[in-house]
């Protein structure tokens, strides 16, 4: 009964919004990005800087001396895991300093910021409650599925797997696909085999070497507690155009499970989390894509466009839009900006602007403000100039992670080195030119090395926040207006 489903779905969203509206003037900040974009580090550093009073000169409330203190509050949503800030901070600042584990599921953290209001007739002491919701960007790719039926989903996924960049990776799954007959009797074993082959293909395209972004369904990569359940045991089949799906056939089984996936995975996420966000930051690891090659960069552009189309979902649904809180600011941030010299940051931002351009164009009608910034939530390097022969190269100095290679040197994770990562093109379009994918060391004009976290200074009350790059500007854009 899709009609009642829809009605129930809308009612729940409206009830939630009303509850939020009556419950106080909090702000829900969504943090997302495709995996390895640096979400966990971003949230950890953001909270650390606010709680421990890090240097955030561009955040007006700090610059104007109106900032009181920020404290962590008990997590309000009982069914959502808490963002384990303390563990992640310990990972960063511990003896064996390493980047914290990545986001595998949704998590939330409540932070209360006390400050003095500067204007408005309610001047004086005030506080703002910020709920930071951290969730995998792959889940956003699922949201457009709400508007698609199984036949459309299958057609698009099969078509995408034939693209030149993916064809090689999808080979095995495409073999399984060819062997599947959508019109055959429903068979659980066949369904499991195709689902596994499909999931393997999705996983393979995410590997570091290719750095392709993901296709929906996003939960195939991070199944969590739904692993093995029917809602996650389906795969696209090669359907005949226009032919109806015969009841009892394999295709009918897949279609039912696809609907179940939408009902049990996608909709709850949309209603309980996504529709309640006020501000959103989308973190993008452009450097990994640039490392891999132009094909990966183009793929990232497509994924960003898809992610942004998620922000449109539900925009045309009738009544709910009246009550639904809207995301009114979206920030696109190229993370890990400390992995290249500051003279290249403008070029990195230009590339990100180009990548997100289509997405920004789409968001235009949403009435959301959009900004683009290159940032580093934790700055792991410092800058220097290296004179070698007659050349002077702008370089960054840090400890590269074990196994990283550049210019024929391989690092062990202990030695410090000055790295010249190459120059990004002045014309951002050049980063998208070409067919190359999974380039090795020495094949591209640039090579970005991953660095270990910096050594944190120990202060009186635990580690002192490490320097950051433009985290304060991002914060000013995301929450600064509510701290005026």
């Amino acid at each position, binding site marked *: 009964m899709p009609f009642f489903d829809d009605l129930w779905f809308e009612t729940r969203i409206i009830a939630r919004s009303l509850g939020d509206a009556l419950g106080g003037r909090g702000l829900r900040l969504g943090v997302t990005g495709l995996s390895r974009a640096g979400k966990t580090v971003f949230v950890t550093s953001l909270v650390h800087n606010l709680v421990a009073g890090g240097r955030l*000169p561009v955040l007006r409330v700090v610059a104007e001396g109106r900032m009181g203190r920020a404290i962590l509050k008990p997590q309000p949503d009982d069914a959502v895991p808490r963002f384990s800030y303390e563990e992640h901070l310990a990972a960063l600042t511990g003896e064996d300093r390493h980047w914290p584990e990545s986001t595998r599921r949704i998590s939330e953290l409540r932070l209360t910021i006390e400050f003095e209001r500067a204007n408005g007739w309610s001047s004086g002491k005030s506080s703002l409650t910020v709920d930071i919701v951290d969730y995998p960007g792959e889940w956003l790719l699922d949201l457009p599925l709400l508007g698609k039926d199984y036949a459309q989903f299958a057609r698009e996924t099969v078509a995408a797997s034939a693209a030149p960049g993916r064809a090689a990776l999808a080979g095995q799954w495409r073999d399984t696909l060819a062997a599947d007959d959508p019109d055959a009797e429903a068979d659980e074993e066949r369904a499991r085999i195709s689902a596994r082959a499909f999931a393997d293909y999705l996983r393979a395209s995410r590997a570091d070497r290719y750095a392709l972004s993901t296709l929906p369904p996003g939960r195939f990569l991070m199944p969590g507690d739904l692993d093995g359940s029917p809602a996650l045991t389906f795969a696209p089949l090669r359907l005949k155009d226009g032919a109806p799906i015969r009841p009892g056939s394999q295709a009918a089984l897949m279609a039912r499970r696809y609907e179940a996936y939408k009902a049990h995975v996608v909709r709850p996420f949309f209603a309980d989390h996504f529709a309640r966000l006020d501000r959103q930051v989308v973190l993008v690891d452009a450097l990994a894509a640039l490392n891999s090659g132009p094909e990966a960069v183009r793929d990232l552009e497509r994924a960003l466009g898809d992610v942004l189309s998620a922000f449109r979902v539900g925009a045309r649904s009738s009544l709910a839009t009246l009550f639904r809180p809207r995301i009114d600011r979206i920030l696109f941030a190229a993370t890990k900006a400390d992995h290249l010299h500051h003279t290249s940051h403008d070029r990195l931002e230009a590339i990100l602007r180009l990548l997100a351009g289509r997405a920004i164009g789409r968001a235009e009608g949403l009435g959301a403000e959009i900004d683009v910034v290159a940032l580093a939530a934790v700055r792991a390097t410092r800058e220097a100039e290296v004179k070698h022969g007659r050349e002077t190269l702008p370089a960054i100095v840090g400890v590269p992670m074990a196994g990283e290679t550049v210019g024929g040197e391989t690092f062990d994770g202990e030695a410090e080195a000055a790295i010249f990562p190459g120059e990004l093109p002045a014309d951002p379009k050049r980063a998208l030119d070409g067919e190359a994918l999974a380039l090795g060391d020495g094949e591209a004009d640039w090579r970005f090395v991953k660095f270990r976290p910096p050594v944190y200074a120990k202060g009186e009350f635990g580690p002192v926040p490490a320097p950051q790059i433009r985290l304060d500007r991002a914060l000013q854009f995301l929450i600064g207006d509510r701290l005026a």
Partner: protein
Amino acid sequence: MSDAAPPRPRAFRLAPATDPAGAPRLEGGASIAPETFDPFAKEAEAALDPDEARVERAQAQGMASKRRFSLAAVFWTASGLLVSLAAGLWIDRIVEDLFSRSRALGAVGLALAAIALAALAGLVAREARAVLRQRGIARLHAGLAAARAADDGRAARVLVAELAGLYAHRPETASARAELARLQGEIVDGRDLIDLAERTLVAPLDRRARAEIAAAARRVSAFTTLAPRAALDVIFVAAQAIRLVRRIAEIYGGRPGALGLLRIGRSALAHLAVTGGVAAGDTILQQVLGHGIAARISAKLGEGVLNGLLTTRLGLSAMAVCRPAPYAAIAPPGVTDVAPFLLKGWKAAGEQKDVG
């Protein structure tokens, strides 16, 4: 140069430091120079200029002030309405009395009352337009400052077009406007576009405003020195100050009426109050006053120069708040730039006294 292959990515290992305080060394014959300044701190500074913040706060207190609840406002609104009612009643009485004497007189009275009412409505509309225009300028100022700090090309294009529109009726800005219109379509950084607009479009207005301030300062100091009565120069200085603020607002595209002028005056005074302390740090002034020369020369001349300085400071504050673009490419002028003769006068007087 541009055709040469770009340098390849490379790594240089840092030799383990033998001396922790010593400079780092590189293996393989290259040398390394650590960055001496923090580029990101500089950027943060540019994004949050304290002078600019002061100007915007001052604007928010006067020209761009939002309506907000206050007891004073309620009192004035209620009293104003009461007075209007009283005036209405009074006019009604007069017209009635006139009618009771003769129909013709009554008709004349009624017509006069109608004309007065229409004129009043016109005045109010003009005032409202002037206030809105001034608020628009303040908003443009804040928008340009924000777009410049964020280097936002899209916002910069919109705002610069708006800025050019503000001066569309002034023939002397034609070439600057044409140049900016040409750049709108080209690939120019937001920051560069705003800087260019300031240099080409606003700088000529700055020159006029500065000349206006200098003239006012000269008049005030001369009149104070020569005026026979203290009361007279108070009136003169106040009148000159009002005139100066009005002229500056007009130069930058505002058309203040009485209420608008009041608001600009409030902003200018708010700005003067926060920057006054900085101005007292003007080295020459400090030196002069510090040495107590003021006491040694003619009291009247001293008063004249002080009044002149005050007028200049007020003019500079009015300039800062009325200017539709923030000071960025052009450094904000100080007293020495605008009215150097005042300080020279001090010095010359001091030297004369020393010699004599």
